[in-house]
């Protein structure tokens, strides 16, 4: 186990905890979604650091899944917000 990597991961985890404030207080929905997106990026960083720190190669795959699928929620959100603005006729 590597002390340095795990403490770096801990710092990024604390930054996630700080980023929660943006989700909780973000004035618009887009702010909240962007904060969640930032969490995804931080999660990738933590996983890469833990993969080095805990000597587990499999964590790299999990980081790849995070990076691939993090965009999904944002894309869904963008399509949805766009629907609201462009005034699609509602039932």
């Amino acid at each position, binding site marked *: 186990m590597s002390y340095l990597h795990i403490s770096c991961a801990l710092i990024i985890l604390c930054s996630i905890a700080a980023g929660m404030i943006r989700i909780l207080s973000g004035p618009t929905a887009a702010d909240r979604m962007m904060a969640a997106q930032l969490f995804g990026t931080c999660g990738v960083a933590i996983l890469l650091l833990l993969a080095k720190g805990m000597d587990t*190669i*499999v964590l790299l*795959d*999990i980081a*790849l*899944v995070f990076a*691939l*699928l993090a*965009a*999904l929620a944002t*894309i*869904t959100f*963008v*399509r949805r917000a*766009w*629907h609201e603005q*462009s005034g*699609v006729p509602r039932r």
Partner: protein
Amino acid sequence: MTARSTQNKRKRFDPVLLLVLLLIVFLTGLLVQVILATDYLGSGLGDDVARFQDLSGVESPVTAVLLNFRGYDTLLEVMVLLMAVVGVWSLTRAPFPKKPIEPGPIQLAVVRLLAPLMVLFSFYLVWQGSHLAGGAFQGGAVLGGACVLMLVSELPWLKNISSRFLRIGLLSGPLVFLGVAILCIVLQGTLLDYPQEWVGTLLLLIETACAVSIGLTLACLFAGGRPKDDLSGGRKR
């Protein structure tokens, strides 16, 4: 919780909520006792799994448990997923907008870049399930992610695909699994007792079929209703 705000609005003490709170505190105390009394030895089956690992045909213990030692469990679970799709399809029709908004160039680029990568990675995960982390469920989930990415972009060609292919894909996992199970009964006399020389290949076959069907299941659940060209009722509007 929201209960608090409603509580403040109505009266100071809602008796029902107070009762619920009391019961929950009681339950918490009970469960803390249980947790403190646990000795953290797992299920106690870890040694057995390690002993028969060589016979299972895969190197990863979790995959061995899922597909070999507790194979009937996974077989039924794949059926449960199919039942969820049946439930959703019987409830409502998929809400396709009348005038879909064309995806912009950036979104098309994202779909073009990400969707093939996701499909590739999902099959990599299925293959990797035999020796490291991964397997049918993880691969199927990533495949489902690729399908959801295409669905949410409302690609125009997506609606013109006949739902017959979708149905075949959805059924492939359960049918292959069930077929192998019945084959095992014929060959060995017991359900899901794989013949020893074929076990690795059979597990990979089952996993691939299940991953495809799980991915399509998740996509159908996201689409939220049965497809437009219903085989039962023809095209009604």
